């Protein structure tokens, strides 16, 4: 009885140490047995992306919605209201509103923005001085699977970013200036949207792994701006026939095929390039940039 009170203090002190030691020891003795498979690891990595996206949802949403909102406001509301000459080109001649031409173009530029930002910016962070990429690189899958996961995550962001354009242009326009959308084939629309997403995300992976992070701002200016401005956003590709050299030159711009593909799927009343050329460029471009991106990603991760 006398012994119960005296050693209590000592007992607690040494008991704490012993307790910590035993809980550390239990980490080894009571460990669950892991059974990783490619699919489970890939799924867990995607779940991690969605957790982060969800946490950053407000800023992600604002980033995604600002561009189409402002574009639609200026081109489909302000300009028609003040009666500028805008929209009197090929579209207006055939009785189309400018917003009809703008929807595919705007979606195309959203693919590019969201796909490249969504893939490249996280990579720049992960390859910076702390190399947090090593955390994911130690997961029990080949490095190329990690690269494919990065493309998948970026493509999903691009897809969502482009889809946001629909509600925005439906609501934001001057009276009578709404877009005339006529989905000829949902299958074609889905195919164009999916491969436009994978193409921009693959380009993002490649850029994010070959460009020095310190020069990323410059690269965005040199790559993103010309691709967007010369991506047939504000006019269909066929309208460029009056400037023949430019019509041929822009064929190297992947974005042209996205906007033209969307025109084929959404606004068939406007002329578009042949479907085979569009799909070849979107699928082939994904394959080429995917291959280059995965290869340079592996070289960056494994020294």
């Amino acid at each position: 009885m006398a012994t119960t009170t005296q050693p209590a203090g000592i007992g607690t002190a040494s008991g704490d140490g012993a307790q910590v030691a035993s809980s550390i020891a239990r980490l080894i003795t009571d460990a669950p047995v892991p059974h990783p498979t490619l699919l489970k690891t890939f799924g867990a990595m995607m779940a991690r992306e969605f957790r982060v996206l969800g946490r950053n949802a407000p800023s992600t949403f604002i980033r995604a919605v600002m561009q189409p909102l402002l574009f639609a406001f200026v081109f489909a509301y302000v300009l028609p209201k003040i009666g500028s000459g805008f929209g009197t080109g090929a579209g207006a001649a055939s009785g189309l509103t400018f917003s009809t031409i703008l929807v595919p173009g705007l979606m195309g530029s959203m693919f590019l923005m969201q796909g490249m930002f969504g893939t490249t910016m996280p990579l720049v962070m992960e390859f910076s001085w702390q190399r947090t990429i090593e955390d994911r690189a130690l997961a029990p899958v080949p490095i190329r699977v990690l690269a494919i996961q990065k493309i998948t995550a970026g493509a999903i962001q691009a897809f969502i970013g482009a889809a946001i354009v629909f509600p925005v242009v439906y609501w934001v326009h001057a009276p009578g200036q709404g877009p005339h959308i006529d989905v000829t084939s949902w299958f074609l629309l889905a195919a164009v949207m999916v491969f436009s997403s994978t193409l921009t995300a693959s380009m993002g992976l490649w850029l994010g792994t070959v460009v020095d992070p310190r020069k990323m701002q410059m690269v965005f200016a040199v790559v993103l701006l010309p691709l967007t401005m010369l991506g047939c956003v504000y006019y269909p590709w066929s309208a460029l026939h009056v400037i023949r050299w430019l019509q041929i030159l822009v064929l190297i711009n992947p974005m042209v095929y996205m906007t033209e593909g969307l025109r084929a799927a959404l606004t068939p009343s406007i002329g578009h390039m042949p479907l085979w050329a569009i799909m070849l460029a979107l699928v082939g471009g994904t394959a080429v940039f995917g291959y280059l991106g995965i290869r340079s990603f592996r070289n960056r991760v494994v020294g």
Partner: protein
Amino acid sequence: MITATANGRNSVPAGPPAAKAAIRTEDLRKTYKSSRGDVEAVRGIDLDIPQGEFFGLLGPNGAGKSTTIGMLTTLVHPTGGRAWVAGHDVTRQPVAVKRRIGVVTQNNTLDMQLTVAENLEFRSRFFGLSKGVAARRAAQLIDAFGLSDRKNAMADQLSGGQGRRLMIARALVHQPDVLFLDEPTAGLDPQTRVNLWDILKVLHAQGQTILLTTHYMEEAEALCDRIAVVDHGKILAEGTLDKLLAEAGAETIVTVRYEQPVPDGLAERAGLADRPGVTKVETDGDQLRVFSGDPEGLLGDLVNIGAANGLHVRDATEAKPSLETAFLALTGREYRE
């Protein structure tokens, strides 16, 4: 120049990995190509580490320790030799190796966009644990590593010591066969360092195989069963602390630095090598260094010998046998941390 006493490498592994080896390497090499010439970071390292051992790679910064760990953990591609971890070839079976290792890198690779608990949960799920099991494992690790009051904090809000504990916890989620720790206590305060040592000792007592790199001699002395002293990409000596000291550092090293250069032949004329207990005498510019098992009176004699030859003493040191004297004996250089 020192021609080191018996070089501690007595076993050169050959052939396929023995069943019980946790880590085995054969002439492992890494040369980084660059436009300014090639850099040989690791120049032929042989290791044979059995399961359950706490093994230390000790060496100064830039010795090639991190590159070696990089190769063993599949994140650096060897340019020569071979390595097996948990029985799997690191170059040919990297996924099998990654399944069986836990790695605590020197840089902070915590997922800064996730909370403490999420860092552990997602890592568990990367290793195939279901959502529920992953959450339980995370809770168990958070409790054991004393992070309960920080479990909902974002990873970038942790202190240095908390971050390091979380990284060790994260490396243990899937019960790895081998735990790699690259400079785990670098930059931590002494109290935090000792706390981490206690954790590592308990893990080792439970049979966890651990490979640790460190540039702190006292860390290697306090923790490791066996130590390999590494510098310039090579193992200079390897063995238990006692063996290293017996082979390389059992003598006290007396160093006297004079204000003038030591004349050629002075050590021979003074008969220093013939004194009882002396194993080696070295002249190095203005320094005279004597390795002796019987250092009694040696320091005074060196001062007198100098004085008789017109040399004034600038400073003098007497280093007792330790890893530090072993390092000095092996490399001919002061240990630089």
